[in-house]
């Protein structure tokens, strides 16, 4: 029987020295000469663009690399003084918990209680200690009400919490999380991050969290490790990371940091509270007014907005006439779905109309009915009452673009002139002979969209409506920017764009209008600048910092600050009330 005891004298929760790793048959190493250590109780954020090696590093730290994936490894990894290369992931599991991106494949039992109890049972713990551990971890993660539920009845957020509970139930010293919020709505995502912070503070758990949406978790982190092409490019405090990202890769900047850098204000904020404190202290010092930002200009519906909320560029430039028919016409739509044995109204009397060329973000928390609405419009579900019509046709791209890719050659997926026309629309005509599996994530998404469009266009003219369901899952900011450009281009050709998303920053980047669903009902429908600045969870980071109606992007915020506060621009960066900003450290 293996020795399952964890050394109690470990000075490092994780120590990696000179680690280089290549996957089997890979021409290039996935990790190159990585050296880092995490002290017990640290909360570290792992940042970097897609495919930079974040997931591989996490898999190495929990023993899956090389034990499960094979490949060639050099260097040393120790988790709580246990040699991770010599021991397998099973033996390491007492010291390290791992939560992956997709919660679906992280549960192996039928019920939640059995899932959480399994690691302890496999270690031979007594029934009494198992009962206590399950109860405690369920209370810590606020899931006692889920213990008797079947795992296949849980939402994505609930399932992610259960996976986290199963990883934490052995009370590991180190928890590794690979983009755990990528499938969660802003509410569930924020809850998970602050839950991790609480576990880190109260239980002393060391956390290493890989994330793309840095604005969501930077304020919770003690340290940021940024990776680029398999190496560590930066390792330091969150504020220093923001300064580094400003020069190294702006795709890693948070919206609040971008707001500050565009406005020439410093130091760069690591979170909303930090940013608000800095702005408050600057304005109080310079003007002696109660809240000068309140006097700033605001953007309202109908006014010309800065980048991100302007009408489609091509429509403006080329004077394309919008179709008179609506691209989407939804009237009194009721859709009933069965959850377990009881049917439930998922959509309740939804009314929605979208014009051609309009870019609309469909938002709402998990289970609000976003996907159901898109699937009903796409003809996959039938309403029990009302109607949903796209008079000029529609193309729908569901959450996983790989589901559309069946064949081994792009040209075989899209034969003929119609196929080529669809490839041209998404800018993929050069890849006719490529294997879809060799394409990048963004290219696969474009190809899937071309498959959905093929034959639904008249020449190069798009169908009336193009709908995308949660298209930014696992995307870094650079790829999201590319997607925003594609959306703008499609809208510029006259198609109405309806995009269901949890990502408020992404929505602020492309949408003219935001429709917010809550429990199957439209609870807000208005210009993006209005909806994304009028709340807390469904508001951008810039909106939360400035709290000004109509200001949602860093560019808009910087313009507002310039017109309302010359104070900010008149001083050199980093000199205003540095002490108060450092004290905040949130």
């Amino acid at each position, binding site marked *: 029987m293996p020795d399952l005891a964890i050394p109690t004298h470990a000075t490092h929760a994780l120590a990696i020295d000179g680690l280089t790793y290549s996957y089997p048959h890979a021409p290039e190493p996935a990790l190159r000469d990585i050296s880092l250590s995490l002290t017990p109780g640290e909360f570290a954020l792992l940042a970097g663009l897609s495919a930079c090696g974040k997931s591989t590093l996490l898999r190495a730290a929990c023993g899956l690399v090389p034990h499960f994936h094979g490949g060639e490894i050099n260097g040393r990894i120790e988790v709580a003084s246990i040699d991770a290369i010599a021991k*397998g992931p*099973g033996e390491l599991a007492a010291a390290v918990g791992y939560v992956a991106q997709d919660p679906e494949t992280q549960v*192996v039992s039928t019920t939640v209680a059995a899932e959480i109890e399994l690691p302890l049972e496999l*270690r031979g713990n007594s*029934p009494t200690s198992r009962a206590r551990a399950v109860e405690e971890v369920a209370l810590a993660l606020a899931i006692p009400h889920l213990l008797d539920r079947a795992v296949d009845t849980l939402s994505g957020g609930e399932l992610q919490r259960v996976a986290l509970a199963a990883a934490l139930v052995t009370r590991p010293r180190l928890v590794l999380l690979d983009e755990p919020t990528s499938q969660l709505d802003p509410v569930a995502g924020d809850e998970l991050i602050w839950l991790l912070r609480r576990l880190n503070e109260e239980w002393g758990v060391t956390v290493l969290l890989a994330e793309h949406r840095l604005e969501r978790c930077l304020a919770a982190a003690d340290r940021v490790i940024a990776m680029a092409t398999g190496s560590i490019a930066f390792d330091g405090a969150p504020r220093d990371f923001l300064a580094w990202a400003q020069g190294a890769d702006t795709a890693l900047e948070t919206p609040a940091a971008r707001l500050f850098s565009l406005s020439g204000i410093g130091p760069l904020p690591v979170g909303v509270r930090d940013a608000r404190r800095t702005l408050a202290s600057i304005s109080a010092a310079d003007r002696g007014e109660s809240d000068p930002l309140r006097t700033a200009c605001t953007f309202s519906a109908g006014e010309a907005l800065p980048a991100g909320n302007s009408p489609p560029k091509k429509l403006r430039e080329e004077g394309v006439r919008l179709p008179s028919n609506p691209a989407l016409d939804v009237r009194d739509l009721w859709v009933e779905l069965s959850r377990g044995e009881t049917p439930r109204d998922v959509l309740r009397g939804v009314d929605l109309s979208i014009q051609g060329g309009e870019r609309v973000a469909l938002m709402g928390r998990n289970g609000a009915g976003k996907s159901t609405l898109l699937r009903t419009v796409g003809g996959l579900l039938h309403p029990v009452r009302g109607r949903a019509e796209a008079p000029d046709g529609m193309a729908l791209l569901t959450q996983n673009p790989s589901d559309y890719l069946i064949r081994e050659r792009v040209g075989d997926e899209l034969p003929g002139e119609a196929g080529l026309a669809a490839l041209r629309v998404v800018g993929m005509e050069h890849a006719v002979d490529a294997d879809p599996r060799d394409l990048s994530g963004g290219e696969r998404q474009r190809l899937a969209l071309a498959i959905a469009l093929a034959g639904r266009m008249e020449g190069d003219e798009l169908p009336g409506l193009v709908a995308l369901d949660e298209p930014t899952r696992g995307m870094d900011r650079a790829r999201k920017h590319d997607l925003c450009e594609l959306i703008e281009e499609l809208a510029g050709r006259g198609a109405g764009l309806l995009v269901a998303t949890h990502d408020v920053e992404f929505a602020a980047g492309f949408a003219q209008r935001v429709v917010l669903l809550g429990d199957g009902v439209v609870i807000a429908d208005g210009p993006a600048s209005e909806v994304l600045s009028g709340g807390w969870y469904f508001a951008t980071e810039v909106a939360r910092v400035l709290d000004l109606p109509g200001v949602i992007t860093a560019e808009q915020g910087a313009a507002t600050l310039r017109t309302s506060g010359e104070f900010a621009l008149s001083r050199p960066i980093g000199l205003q009330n540095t002490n108060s900003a450092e004290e905040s450290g949130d």
Partner: protein
Amino acid sequence: MRSPFAYTPRPGPLQAALPAAAVTYLGSLVVVAFLYPSPIVLAATGAGLVLAGRLAGARAAVSAALWMGVTLAFFIAAVNALVANRGETVLARLGEWPVLGQVDVTLEAIAEGAVLGLRAAVVLVAFAVYSACVDPDRVLRALRPLAGRSALTATLVSRLVPVAAADAARLRDAARLRGPAAAPVGRAPLARRLLAGSLDRAVDVAATLELRGYSLDAPRTKYRHGRSRHDRRFYATGAAILIAAVAGELLGTGAFHAYPTIAIDSGTATLVFSALLVLSGLAPMRRNPRRAAVPRSAGPSHRGSLPTPEATGA
């Protein structure tokens, strides 16, 4: 969408019982279905199982199994009517058929097929109730000390089945959403894609099992939710059904002959045995907790308070 046969945790006696107790109870009814050809006994067994399933809260599973069972029964009866040429009551002469030869549809052949179909339907309902009410985790846990590798395989499969079902549904949706000019997707390419995806999924699930410590050779301990107070009820009911079934078989009750003419035993013993089978369906019924008798003199203020030493005689 969730399968109606998927296990749903509920606070019922059948769900709380040990898997062995539940299997004894449901298995005894399946044994009766295989042991007795009488449609009266089979119908009673089916009624008992439907009652048990509904009392256990598996209404959707029972309905789905009944629908499948009735369809299957009709199919079996129809096929048997065509292939079995025995029986004296000829309903239709369909002439010479290739392979089958002279085809005469007889009442007896239809009855025999219907009984076979009824038996299949009863077994289907029994498995539906088992599937919806018996926690597979507890079954696997019970099997693990006996056959570790088989339990591991069963765990992987039991997890992969719903994951693959969800993947298949997504792939079907994506196939329906393809543009009319995109290459059409037939069943074979879709199945290949599903298989390839399932292999990836299997690797992920296996990695999760590895991380949970499945490969550790730690000593197995008892499951904390062991026996329940309902176990004896199911063991006793199952044993009673089996004893009655064997005794009845030895005494020749529940006889049925389709040929040359239909003969059904409907004697008292058969009817009593059938009634017992229907009543056995009450086994999963939840009993209301007994309330302690409160003396008339005791006012409402005494309710919920701890008994005093005087009251307990201490």
